[in-house]
């Protein structure tokens, strides 16, 4: 599979993990981001992720490539949901495999941090009071 991809349907993390495992792997680290029921003191009912797909794919792949050159890992993948999600759904998954745990953890952290700051994906939250908002964190 591509090392970074967008998914408009729910995905299974066991399958994603299996794609990373082989005999060289001594450590697998993953991160899962889930939709929670609150943000900034407001009660969240659900949200919509929108992406600029062409650029998101390219920038996400660039981030995973950077992780591969920066850390002593064997491979890494990342999948990000787009579309409508409800509380309790998986929004983003990162998996990294290495001979040892240190670089696997480091790569996983690096990838999710960079994805959050660089990949053109936007969150539109729907609140319990019927209002909604795009999240555009101040740069």
């Amino acid at each position, binding site marked *: 599979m591509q090392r970074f991809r967008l998914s408009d349907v729910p995905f299974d993390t066991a399958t994603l993990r299996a794609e990373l495992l082989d005999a060289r792997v001594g450590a697998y680290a993953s991160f899962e981001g889930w939709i929670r029921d609150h943000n900034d003191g407001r009660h969240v009912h659900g949200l919509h*992720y929108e992406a*600029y797909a062409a650029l998101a794919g390219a920038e996400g792949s660039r981030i995973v490539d950077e992780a591969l050159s920066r850390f002593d890992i064997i491979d890494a993948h990342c999948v990000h949901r787009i579309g409508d999600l409800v509380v309790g759904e998986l*929004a983003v998954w990162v998996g990294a495999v290495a001979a040892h745990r240190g670089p696997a953890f480091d790569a996983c952290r690096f990838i999710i941090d960079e994805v*959050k*700051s660089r990949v053109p*994906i936007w*969150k539109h939250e729907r609140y319990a009071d019927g209002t909604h908002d*795009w999240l555009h*964190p*101040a740069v």
Partner: protein
Amino acid sequence: MTRLHVLYFASLRDAAGVDSESVDGTATDLRALYEILQRRHGFTLPVSQLRVAVDGAFARWDDAPRDGSEVAFIPPVSGG
């Protein structure tokens, strides 16, 4: 005169009321192009909070618009 296809995302799309439009203009760089469209649509996000992309790759604000290209203004992202 250049003809550009401009893409809007998230709050910029809501403010513009369209997800894309054709723009004919004489802006000398992408910063000037955004400022023209910002006035037209009432965008509240300043250029300093945005990034710009051309034909699917990040570009620089002082790049000149290329006739026939696709320009996207990227509001602060909030994935993850």
